[in-house]
Structures are given as C-alpha cells and as structure tokens.
C-alpha cells in the first residue's frame, strides 16, 4: 500500500500499476470530478426548482408588496409595502376566514390521520380483499377533485343519497342542510377533503405497519395483549415517525385545499366556507386585486412555514 502512495525516485523505472497506472493524485482528481458530476446531475432539478418554485414565490412576495390591479398587471407594479396585509387584517371578515381555515385544517388533519391509520390497520394483512379495497382507495385518491366534488355535491344535496337515506330511515325529519347551513357547510366540505386524504395516509401507514418486525406482535400476543392493546402499544409507537411526516403533509394539504370549496360551495353560503386559499382566489381572480390576493396567499404560506418549523424542531429534539 505504501508503494502506491510513495512517488518513485527520480530515474527509477516506471512501474505499471494495477488499475491503469493512475496515481493517487489523479484518483483525487477523479473523486473531485465525480463530486462535480453529482452537482451536474443535480443542476436540472435545481434549475427547475428555481424557475417553478423559488421564482414564483419571490414574485408572489413582490406582488404582495405592490398595488397590482387589472389595469397594471402586465405593466409597472407600484410598491406599497405592507398595505395589502394591513387591508386584509383591516377587513372585518378576515378573522372569520382565518378561523374557517384553522377549523378546516384541524378536521382534515385529525380525520385524515385517524382514518388513514384505521384503514391501514384493517388493510395490513395481505390477501385478495385488502388488495381490492386498497385499489379502490387509490382510485378515490386519484380521482380529479372536480369530479369528486361534483359527486359529493350531488350526494349531499337535499334530494341526494344521504338525505334520502336519513329521512327514509327516520334518522332525520327533514333534509340535513349539509352544504347550505353556515356552520355545517364548512364541516361537510372538510369531511369530503378528509375522505380524499385518507387513502394516501392509509397507503403510507400500511407500508410502515408492514415494516414492523413480526417478533413485536408475537411477543405482545405471548404476553396476552388484546387487539386494541396491540394497536396502542405496538403499532402506534412504531409508526410515530410516519405520523409526524403525515401530520405535516396533511396540514399542508389542508391549508392549500381549494378545489372542493370551489366546486361544492364557492365559498358560501355567503362566506361560510371561505378559507385563505379561496379568499386569495376571489381577491386575485374575481375582484382582480392581485396584490391583495398575493398577500393572502403569503399569509397562508407563512402559517404553513410556522407549522413546518415547529415540526422540524420536534424532529430534531427527538433525534437528540
């Protein structure tokens, strides 16, 4: 080995080395070139991110600090500082929109996680039926939101399937105002969103559950654990890191949910189902106040960022 790392004395005959006779220096150069090559491979993805993620966010910030209306969208944007944010918070209805958003995200997150875990536990065994149900779940998840939303709007109508069942079975004397009661409408749309997010969470949870060593289940059975105790003391602790990741993903999904509200209620009745993303859409693409809409979008982004930071700190503390 030392021969390989010592330069031959001057005048000594050159010795052909294994590996093509490359010197350690040349190896280092190759290693260095390999590193650069890695960077080269990363470049397209980095460029893509810069153009389609970083640049729009920078422009979003710029737009949120400017007065951008329909008549100057393609021209000069006048800088107005925090005026758009102040206008938003000065609007009496904005507080209600924030509350709507938090309630919506909370319902989607809790039901999405609990439902996803429950479905994963039920579908964890391999076999024909779990596979079939899993395929159905993927189908539900993959359906375009516009289709899903339209179907659910029909199902939840006064003449829809749910109200027909409820009234025919005597569970309700009159049709339940799923989509037009000012309180129930938000819950109904959030439930539909949860129903859509459950399949994705179930798939991820199922992979985590399948990865739990079988010995853990055997040991718990030897100790006489019931099915519920097995879930509580084996499965839930084992999928904790998965839960953390899914929590963040589901919260982000809830925060950016727009399509179901658009299709099912258009933010109504009144503004009962207006959340931050929908408000941003209305401000930017109905009222054509692009600066105001951008500031709303930015507030939503910042709320998600705060949650992401809290999550990252929790993960770091756990790793310590």
């Amino acid at each position: 080995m030392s021969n390989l790392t010592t330069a031959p004395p001057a005048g000594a005959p050159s010795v052909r080395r294994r590996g093509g006779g490359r010197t350690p220096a040349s190896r280092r150069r190759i290693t260095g070139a390999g590193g650069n090559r890695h960077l080269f491979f990363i470049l397209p993805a980095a460029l893509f991110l810069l153009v389609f993620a970083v640049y729009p966010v920078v422009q979003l910030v710029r737009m949120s600090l400017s007065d951008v209306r329909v008549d100057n969208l393609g021209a000069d944007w006048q800088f107005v500082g925090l005026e758009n944010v102040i206008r938003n918070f000065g609007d009496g209805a904005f507080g209600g929109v924030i509350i709507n958003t938090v309630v919506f995200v909370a319902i989607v997150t809790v039901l999405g996680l609990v439902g996803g875990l429950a479905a994963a536990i039920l579908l964890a065994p391999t076999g024909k039926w779990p596979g079939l149900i899993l395929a159905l779940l993927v189908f539900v998840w993959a359906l375009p939101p516009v289709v899903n939303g339209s179907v659910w709007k029909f199902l939840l109508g006064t003449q829809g399937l749910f109200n027909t069942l409820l009234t025919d079975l005597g569970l309700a004397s009159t049709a339940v105002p799923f989509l037009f009661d000012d309180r129930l409408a938000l819950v109904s749309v959030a439930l539909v969103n949860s129903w859509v997010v459950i399949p994705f969470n179930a798939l991820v949870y199922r992979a985590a559950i399948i990865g739990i060593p079988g010995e853990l289940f055997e040991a718990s059975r030897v100790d006489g654990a019931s099915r519920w105790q097995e879930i509580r003391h084996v499965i839930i602790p084992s999928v904790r890191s998965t839960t953390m990741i899914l929590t963040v993903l589901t919260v982000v999904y809830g925060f950016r949910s727009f399509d179901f509200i658009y299709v099912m209620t258009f933010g109504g009745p009144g503004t009962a189902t207006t959340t931050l993303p929908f408000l941003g859409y209305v401000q930017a693409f109905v009222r054509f106040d692009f600066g105001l809409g951008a500031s709303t979008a930015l507030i939503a982004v910042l709320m998600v960022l705060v949650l992401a930071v809290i999550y990252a700190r929790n993960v770091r503390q756990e790793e310590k």
Partner: protein
Amino acid sequence: MNSASRVQGRILVASAAAVALTLTGCTPSAQTPSGDGGGDGGGAQTLSVWHYFSDDNQVAILDEYKAMFEEANPDVTVENVFVPYDQLNPRLISSAASSTGPDVVVFNGADMSTLALGNALAPLDDYWADFADADQFPESVIHSLDDTVYAVQGYVNLLGLWYNADVLGEIGVEPPTTIDELDAALTAAVDAGQGGITLSGLPNSQGEWQAYPWLSSFGFTYDDPQREPLVEAFSMIQRWTESGALTREASTWDQTVPFQTFAAGGHAFAENGNWQMGTAESTADFSYGVVPLPIGAEGGVYLGGEGQAIGAFSEQPDLAWDYLEATYYSEEGGVIAAELVGSIPARSDAAGSEAVTGNDLMAPFADSIASNGTNYPAGVIPPESVADVQLAVGQAWSSVISGQLTPDAAADQVLAALEGLL
C-alpha cells in the same frame, strides 16, 4: 417599465394563471391562430372563439355560427373553445398580460370594463363606424369605455318569472303581477305540498344578477343606496325560506341548477332567463309559461347577455370582425339565437322576425325590457369597482338565503361595502 421586468411580469402572470387553472381543474388549451396567421390573406386559417357556454342549446348556437362562417369561408376553421364561466375573465386577462389570447371573445357583457381595463379586448370603433347595419342596434347593447367601443351584444338576455301552469292550476292561482300576489301564490303552493320558487343565490355575480330585481322593487338603486329597501327585500327572501317556499340550498346554486330543479316539476315558479327556453322545451313534461317578474314600476331587470368582441392580441382582427358581422351581428344570426335558445335579438329587424314575434314565451321578456329594463351593470358603478360590487351584493344575497345573516346585518354589510366602491 423596462422590458426585462415586463417579461418577468408576463411569465409570472402566465404561471399564476396556469396554477389557478390547474387548481380548478380547468386547463383549456391555448389557442394560437394557425395557418399564415397574418391577417386575411390566402391559406388555411383558424379562428379561435372563447366562450363559457355549457348548456347544449347555447352550444348549438356556436355550432350553427361555426357552420355558417366556414361555409362562407372555406379556408377558415372556427375553433370554439370552452372556458368555464369563472375562469374566462382571469384567463383572458392573464393571456393579455403575456400578449396572447383568442381572436373572438364571447363573455358576460357586464364584464366589458374589467376586460377592457385588463387590455384583453381590441377597440371596435373603426369596424363599428364602417358597419352598414350599425343603426339596427340600440345604444344599450354597445359597450364603451372612455368613448371607445369594445364590445356589442348580438342579443339581450334577461330574467322573467317562469311558472308551472299545472301547479298553478292545482292551487287555483293566476300568474302573479305583483309581489303580494306572488307571496300569496307561494303560500298556496307550499300549503299544497308543492315547491315554491327556485332562484340562484351563488355568492358571486350570478347572485347579484338575480338579486337586483327584488332589491330594486323595494326602491334600492346604486345611484342612491339606502338601507330600508335592502332590509325589506332581504326580509321577503327570508320569509320565503322560513315558509319553505324557497330552499336555503339555493344559496350555493348557480343559475343552471334552479332551472333544472324547476324543469323537473313540482315547483310553482323559477326566476330565470329567456335563454332557458330550449331547456324547458327539452326537459319539462308539464305546461309552463312566463310572466315579467312582478317587481312593480320601480323594479329593474338587468339587460344582460353576452358581449362579443375581438381579442386584443388577435393576429387576424379583420377576420374576427368578419365572423362577428356574419354571425352574432347579422339578422340571420339573431334569428338563430332566438330560435335555439330564446335570446332576444338586439337588431331591430331580427327582433321583428317571426321567430320572435311568433313565440309566446318571448313576449313577456319583451314586455320586461320595455317596462323594467335596466342597464347592466348600473352606470353609476365605476368600471374598476364592478367586480367588487357584484361580489359584495352576491355574498350578502347568499348569506340572507342561507340564514347566515339577518336582513339588517346583510343590509349593513352591503352598504359598508358600497361606501368604498361607488
């Protein structure tokens, strides 16, 4: 503004529009004129027409116009491009910011000022000045901003009160001519186990369009907005929802759903437009008719309908004008719209055709134009505030129907919003 920042802006606008459209699942393909694209010279040409029609009968008009124009211009292919109603304006404005867009636009006439301010429409002054039949059109269908004509409506659409003659016969009432008679008829219908009235309460411009006749019937105007008329109108609507004459579900219905509900039977009335004649004929299996909305002398019915214009960035504006002249603005085109959908032609010669005068359902709409017709949007609303006013009133209307707001609170909300907009 330097060119670099303009390019940046356009890229952003295009990205934002793409994201917004993707979010809503609506991504109409960009229509770029093919062929020589350089005007009316030889070679195959494609003329793109953006519209928001989804009703079969309304789509049929476009198909007829396409066939007409292609037959007269064998080298031209007319491409009708559907863009959902809520997406048409954003799509046009974002396209204009990146110097692209369709050749012809068929849009809600009330949005002309928004689109013109957004540089999405081409001025029509020169074409209109040279148009031999221009004197056939009344001033009310010519849309201008700062003395420049940007769009003209080939026909007028407005609201009326559709009634189910079978239901009215069952409850023994005549089609109402006043709000009191309407109230009594609704009570009788509900007592007989029938539905009362269907209308749209969607919290956007459609809601405002349907609300205005009732608001104005109690004396509300945008020229001098007062609280009392609003409270009275909103109270009437909540009386209807409390009695069951109007379902609170209407608070999230667009204008299509309430008419389909009416056409399915079991409802006494529908507040809806002349454009539903085709749907009524193909769907309703009961006797029906139309009377003017019973809103008294003070009430106003918007004279709406689609405006037609040339896209600001059309590469073949002359061809686009030829299309408009031969279809929407021609006598034959007006008759086609009347026959297929029941739209009332703006041209006086087409309005006097047998298709119009021989249609019993059109007469009440024509009466409404004469007695209650009102410019849409109200002239007092500044062009840059039109969208905000429509949204504010539409949201309050929806809230009242759903019971989210009391009539007093809704009136206060509307007045507070209008204060900064008018």
